[in-house]
């Protein structure tokens, strides 16, 4: 397990839990990162507020990789602008592309995401596109230079779990860059299941932000993700199509 690294765009990580930082107090970020064992945290880019003196970067420990998202972008052009601004903020060249045309379901626009991926990969970004799990789109994203692919499990913030399970499995089986399940994972058991399927990592935000005890839930997710990873690496036991199979010897019974 010590050699089991998550590699994204040539960068190595030990943790397979990507933490969101939205919808909770900045003061909880440090303990969330610690209890999650996270090495990557997502951020959003917004118009700066002249009245606010506190900045989220003051709460993120050194050595944590920042993964800015392009939320708010409605098309590739806006995503590219946000990504460039994020890089100008001086915290590395990772970017999670997030392009949405509607605010009701917040579903990613796969076609615009491919366009933005191509532009940003050429500019040297480590591009991690959030997408609706579709094999053809995932292949196009990889061809466009994506360092990973981030399929949604269910709608953002819904905590509904692996609604797209079958399609994520296809991506895991067919795509050579890390498949990071993003959006909709609400419980540690769902994160564990995705990892058992062979997902490379899990990204979660709302599951923690809406939990009763955020740092404790971060720790629960950490354990679930590690358990799922170990199960995947060890190879899951087979499932019988029908009938039963005894675990005990079928000889030496106390009868006859």
């Amino acid at each position, binding site marked *: 397990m010590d050699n089991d690294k998550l590699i994204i765009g040539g960068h190595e990580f030990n943790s397979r839990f990507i933490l*969101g*930082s*939205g*919808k*909770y107090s*900045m003061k909880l*970020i440090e303990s969330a990162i610690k209890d999650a064992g996270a090495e990557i945290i*997502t*951020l*959003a*880019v*917004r*118009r*700066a*507020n*002249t*009245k606010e*003196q506190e*900045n*989220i*970067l003051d709460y993120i420990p050194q050595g944590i990789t*920042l993964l*800015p*998202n392009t*939320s708010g972008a409605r098309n590739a052009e806006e995503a590219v*602008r946000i990504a*460039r*601004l*994020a890089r*100008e*903020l*001086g*915290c590395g060249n990772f970017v999670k592309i997030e392009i949405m045309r509607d605010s009701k379901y917040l579903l990613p626009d796969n076609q615009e995401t491919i366009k933005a991926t191509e532009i940003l990969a050429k500019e040297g970004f480590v591009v991690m596109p959030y997408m609706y799990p579709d094999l053809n789109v995932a292949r196009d994203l990889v061809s466009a230079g994506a360092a990973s692919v981030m399929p949604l499990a269910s709608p*953002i*913030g819904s905590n509904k779990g692996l609604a797209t399970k079958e399609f994520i499995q296809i991506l895991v089986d067919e795509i050579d860059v890390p498949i990071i399940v993003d*959006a909709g994972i609400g419980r540690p058991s769902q994160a564990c299941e995705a990892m058992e399927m062979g997902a490379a990592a899990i*990204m979660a*935000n*709302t599951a923690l932000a809406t939990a009763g005890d955020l740092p404790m839930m971060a720790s629960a997710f950490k354990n679930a993700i590690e358990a799922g990873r170990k199960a995947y690496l060890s190879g899951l036991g087979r499932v019988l199509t029908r009938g039963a199979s005894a675990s005990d010897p079928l000889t030496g019974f106390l009868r006859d």
Partner: protein
Amino acid sequence: MVKINGEKLNIAGKTVAEYLATTNYDPKRIAVERNGDIVPKSQYGDTLLCDGDNVEVVSFVGGG
């Protein structure tokens, strides 16, 4: 007029650096875009804001 983060301000003729000096922004924590292009920090002093410019000043916030 110069539009900064959606707000029209009467600061045409000032440089980006001069404008920022009138605000509370922490220069280390912001990025500036003018008419769709990044203004690198090293050019804040040389970049004149013109009438009709559209400027965005952004920073990181919590997000997923």
